[in-house]
């Protein structure tokens, strides 16, 4: 917002009048466009009749309560899957982030206290471990979540592991999101001023202690908005549960459509529900961020630009303006 006011002058009375006229014109144009391009064709195709909309919006309709019972089942299932997925992704993502930071310092270590072959072995080993985690992260980050879920649901049973579809979905979402969260946290930790790490080393903390006591809490704080917006991503991605017949809201929608044949209407309701929940989540992210920004200024911690990966996750997930 602050940027916008810089781009053009504060309008004067003439400009303001012009803007008002333009605003009304544009507004009218949008309305007219919507009427001719959306309302009329829909009306013509009979998509606006109460017969199709009634079960969804008219409490007096015979199917109304049944439909909303089903929809609430779907909402509960969607939220369950999203909650489980976000909790497990956070836990695993933190672990992976710490692991990666540790491995990175380990790779730099020369193991001088050991005999030469042993030190070479240790260096080779830590390099290998680091490479393996790196590859895993790249692979899981580079695969579509749809496929991860699909692979989990089809692949695990091949190895004799069977469970509820809920858990296939949660595992699939966790694999992808924990990797993303790990990267968010890692870049948060690496973005911290080097003085933090140095100071921690100076008071005798080991690298692991440094990460857990000093770096991680700060990274969490800085990255909180990005983490919340990842929640939006998870919530949206639970909709992929329909692929493996998990009864989340889209799948329930499919069943309602099977009974009432009103696909457009059901999907509009589902879309609105999603937008409401996710919009409030991103508002929350914005609020948290503003609080944090204020807190940082008063506490006078050295501020750095949020590292670019913050932008990355923001772009993928949709946190609000960094």
């Amino acid at each position: 917002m602050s940027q916008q006011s810089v781009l053009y002058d504060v309008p004067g009375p003439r400009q303001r009048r012009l803007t008002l006229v333009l605003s009304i014109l544009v507004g009218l144009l949008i309305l007219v466009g919507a009427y001719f391009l959306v309302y009329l064709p829909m009306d013509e195709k009979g998509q606006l009749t109460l017969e199709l909309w009634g079960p969804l919006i008219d409490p007096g309709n015979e199917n109304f309560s049944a439909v909303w019972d089903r929809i609430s089942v779907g909402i509960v299932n969607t939220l369950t899957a999203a909650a489980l997925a976000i909790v497990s992704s956070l836990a695993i993502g933190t672990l992976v982030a710490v692991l990666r930071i540790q491995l990175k310092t380990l790779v730099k270590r020369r193991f001088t206290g050991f005999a030469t072959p042993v030190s070479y072995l240790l260096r080779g080993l830590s390099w290998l471990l680091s490479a393996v985690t790196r590859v895993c992260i790249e692979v899981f980050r580079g695969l579509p979540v749809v496929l991860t879920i699909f692979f989990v649901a089809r692949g695990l049973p091949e190895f004799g592991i069977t469970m509820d579809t809920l858990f296939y979905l949660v595992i699939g979402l966790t694999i992808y999101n924990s990797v993303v969260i790990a990267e968010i946290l890692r870049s948060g930790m690496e973005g911290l001023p080097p003085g933090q790490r140095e100071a921690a080393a100076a008071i005798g903390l080991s690298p692991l202690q440094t990460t857990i006591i000093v770096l991680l809490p700060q990274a969490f704080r800085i990255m909180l908005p990005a983490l919340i917006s990842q929640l939006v991503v998870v919530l949206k991605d639970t909709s992929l549960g329909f692929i493996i017949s998990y009864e989340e809201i889209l799948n329930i929608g499919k069943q309602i459509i099977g009974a009432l044949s009103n696909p457009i209407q059901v999907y509009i309701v589902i879309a609105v529900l999603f937008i409401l929940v996710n919009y409030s989540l991103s508002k929350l992210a914005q609020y948290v961020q503003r609080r944090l920004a204020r807190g940082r200024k008063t506490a006078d911690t050295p501020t750095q630009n949020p590292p670019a990966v913050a932008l990355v996750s923001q772009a993928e997930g949709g946190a609000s303006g960094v």
Partner: protein
Amino acid sequence: MNVLIDRFDVFAGGFWLTFQICVLAAIGALVLGAVVAVLRISPVPPLRALGTAYVTVFRNMPLTVVMFFAAFGLPVLGSNADFLRIPVLDQVFTRLGTDLPYFRFALIALVLYTAAFVCEALRSGVNAVSPGQAEAARAIGMTFTQNLRFVVLPQSWKACIVPLGSVIIAMIKNSALIGFFGVVGDLSQSADQLTSAEGFAFVPVAIGISIGYLIMTVPLGALLDRIERRQAVAAR
């Protein structure tokens, strides 16, 4: 493992189709996203509201729902997306010109959805340009358009590249959904076809399909990491 060799044509065809839609959708999303971004920072309130509404709606909806509206809502509005049958382009991207509109529908859905994220990436780039720049430009009497064109956008471009790249990577991955909305023969639908309908073993097919996506996403990701690191060094 034989399926990878015996049915290589299926994998290659799937890769080609996914690649096609990704190229087209990336171009479309960049253009539309830029337009929406300009709307969002423009001086006219209804345009700004329009831009904001667009981003709010499309960023908070699952792509599945967007895909559904493209595939089943557009026909209700009386459109088969025929305007996408672009004469020369459909020689290269043959699916654009087929009678079956689902490739075009999926393309529209991907473009609409991704454009919201492109807009946000661009806007974050604009925000990264220090306000002093725009103030100075205004001080020497530049208008809104001049300001954007000569001062802000050229600088914001640099800050946009990494987030834009991630948006495109996310889009490539999202394209895996098109197979569920009537586009026959893309990478993810081929996986389904080979394992469910033709009964091939699951693991080799999974590996083949994964490679198809990773070929596109991993190098792009590595490139972005490189640019990001360079910029970080330059900023120091």
